[in-house]
């Protein structure tokens, strides 16, 4: 589904953020990407739907090369759902309109059909009653669930999560993770940048550990948590699991 | 069309344009900026002082000036200043004041309203701890303003103050409505005399543009330097 091969990215000639990153996510797989801050994990996931450009290497999503100038990026992006750290709901639109905007303007769905789809997804994330409210009237956890529903409304073939819980107050983390766990169990292909190792243990198939722009470890979940091969991953794990 | 333009008319008029016109414009700009800044700072201090009435008066003055077109204010003072002069000097009839004095009074009074808003923002941007620290050291209110708050406010606001002065420099061209020989007035007089409007107005535009551009480039450089120091 996602094939990343030998991706290199520089912010400036002397500052390389991604070094020779190679991995893939197959259909139905849940891959968790972790690593210390500044390790390039967010940058990598943003390269997948070309929100960030990269200088060399290739990324294919469902067989389409994202770094090919001929690729219809809006079309490709509409099939890749993305959830951001800071939710990024559109503050001037009601919740339901946040879900309908791209359905109507990108997929060309009729208003009624988009509304129906939106309401169905809001019900699924447990926020049907909030449909007519504005984003600023919701809690962070609720906003993030809306953001997930907004991405799902596009019927994506894969979902990307960029630290979806790290801007949330602790008591709201689980309501978002629950939605993500359900999604994973239904067989959604997911690439998730997160520090939530509980989530990784529960549903991940593979865990990728990144540090200083490199993929240091790329292992099946049990192998990763059982016996991480690299020192850096071991250190990271001991820090993050010690509390 | 551009073909039959006579740019020599500009060269011949240069001494007049710059010695008379530009000297007037720059002197007016400089003195009005200075006066406007002093009066404007006073207005800002009045607004921020604890005295409600003082603050009210200053606020009304600033809002009033900012609601009126500069052209109208220029007319107002042009007719008013002789009467003010009579009142101040106790003369028996309105005294005649020169074009320069009249314009200078106008621009100081008008710009003070704008400078006062800038200085007010500058003073408010200083953290409350600063005057508190100053009074803890035993400085009086006036001393803490004079030595602690105002210097910082002034430095923080320097780029905005200069930008406002560039606007003022351009606005002085409006004394044209009183037929005064500022830079544009001089250009206009030559233009009418020689029937060379296109050449003279294009030249005036280029001169204003060049000076303002260089000054605003300087402001951007200054802002970049201040940003680094912070």
């Amino acid at each position, binding site marked *: 589904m996602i094939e990343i091969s030998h991706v290199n990215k520089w912010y400036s000639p002397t500052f390389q953020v991604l070094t020779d990153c190679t991995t893939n996510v197959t259909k139905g797989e849940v891959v968790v990407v972790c690593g210390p801050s500044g390790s390039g994990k967010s940058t990598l996931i943003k390269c997948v739907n070309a*929100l960030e450009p990269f200088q060399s290497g290739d990324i294919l999503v469902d067989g389409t090369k994202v770094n090919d100038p001929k690729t219809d990026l*809006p*079309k*490709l*992006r*509409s*099939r*890749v759902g*993305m959830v*951001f*750290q*800071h939710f*990024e*709901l*559109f*503050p*001037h639109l009601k919740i339901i309109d946040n879900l309908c*905007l*791209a359905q109507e*303007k*990108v*997929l060309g769905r009729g208003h009624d059909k988009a509304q129906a789809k939106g309401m169905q997804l809001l019900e699924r994330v447990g926020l049907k009653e909030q449909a007519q409210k*504005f*984003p*600023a*009237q919701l809690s962070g956890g609720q906003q993030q669930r809306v953001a997930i529903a*907004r991405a799902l409304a*596009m019927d994506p073939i894969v979902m990307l999560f960029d630290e979806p819980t790290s801007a949330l107050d602790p008591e709201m983390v689980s309501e978002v993770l629950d939605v993500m766990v359900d999604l994973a169990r239904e067989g959604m292909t997911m690439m998730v940048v997160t520090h939530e190792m509980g989530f990784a243990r529960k549903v991940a198939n593979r865990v990728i550990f990144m540090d200083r722009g490199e993929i240091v470890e790329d292992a099946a979940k049990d192998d990763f948590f059982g016996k991480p091969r690299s020192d850096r991953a071991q250190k990271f794990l001991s820090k993050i699991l010690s509390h | *069309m*551009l073909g039959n333009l006579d740019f020599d008319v500009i060269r011949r008029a240069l001494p007049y344009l710059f010695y008379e016109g530009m000297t007037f414009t720059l002197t007016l700009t400089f003195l009005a900026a200075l006066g406007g800044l002093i009066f404007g700072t006073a207005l800002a201090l009045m607004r921020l002082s604890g005295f409600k009435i003082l603050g009210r008066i200053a606020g009304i003055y600033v809002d*009033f000036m900012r*609601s*009126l*077109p*500069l*052209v*109208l204010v220029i*007319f*107002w003072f042009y*007719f008013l200043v002789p*009467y003010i002069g009579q009142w101040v000097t106790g003369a028996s009839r*309105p005294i005649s004041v020169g074009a320069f004095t009249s314009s200078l009074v106008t621009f100081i009074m008008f710009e003070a309203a704008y400078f006062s808003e800038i200085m007010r923002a500058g003073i408010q941007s200083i953290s409350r701890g600063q005057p508190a620290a100053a009074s803890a050291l035993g400085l009086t209110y006036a001393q803490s303003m004079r030595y602690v708050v105002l210097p910082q406010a002034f430095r923080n606001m320097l780029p905005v103050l200069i930008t406002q002065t560039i606007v003022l420099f*351009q*606005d002085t*061209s*409006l004394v*044209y*409505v009183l037929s005064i020989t500022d830079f*544009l007035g001089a250009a206009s007089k030559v233009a009418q005399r020689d029937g060379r*409007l*296109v050449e003279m*107005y*294009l030249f*005036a*535009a280029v001169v*204003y*543009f060049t000076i*303002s*551009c260089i000054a*605003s480039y300087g402001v951007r450089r200054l802002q970049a330097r201040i940003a680094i120091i912070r």
Partner: protein
Amino acid sequence: MNYNWNWGIFFQPNPMGTGTYLDMLLSGLALTLKTAALAWVIALITGSIVGVMRTLPSKGANWFGFAYVEFFRNMPLLVQLFLWFFVLPEILPRAAGLWLKQLPNAPFWTAAIGVGFFMSARVAVQLQAGISSLPRGQKMAATALGLTTVQGYRYVLLPMAFRIILPPLTSEFLNTIKNTAVAITIGLLELTGQARSMQEFSFQVFEAFTAATILYLLVNAVVVTAMRFLERWVAIPGYITGK
């Protein structure tokens, strides 16, 4: 003050035979408002286009936006009006120049266009600041949903940016009204112009200018009140502007 006050002057007939002096001033006010309205339309449209250009990733668009703003901001409005009024007809091809010179209401059109373009540079600067103040993630979220750049601006960035810059736009609109007074120099008989002619005909300097002053203050008050209502009307529930 040895000045002969005569407040009854407003109800005496003016020498043009167009009613009283008060009628004269009111017709000036009407022309001020008409000129300002047209100028504001021009300023909003061109200013918005230029403001958007300054926020685009394209270097060319950026440079154009920068040059545009510098061009209109670094020349006195009066000089710009002279360029439109005296210079433009001369440097155009003969036929076009002649047509321009014979245009009825030339001072009105020149004033509206001249003030409009002058103000457009300020609108552009405000809009650019408004767009830049939005979180970077908003644009990313729009892009990730498959919205094109145009759609992203139309449905996501501009609705928010305009709400944010509504207060500074109010002052720019007031500046537009005030700036039409500069057109007295090209013979536009707007409010200040009519007050000036009233003074020349009747010698009642202070009555004429007092009346004009009051009318400007009234216009200001009306605009400010109207904009307050507009601000309240477009306010987003729960969203605190300025964060």
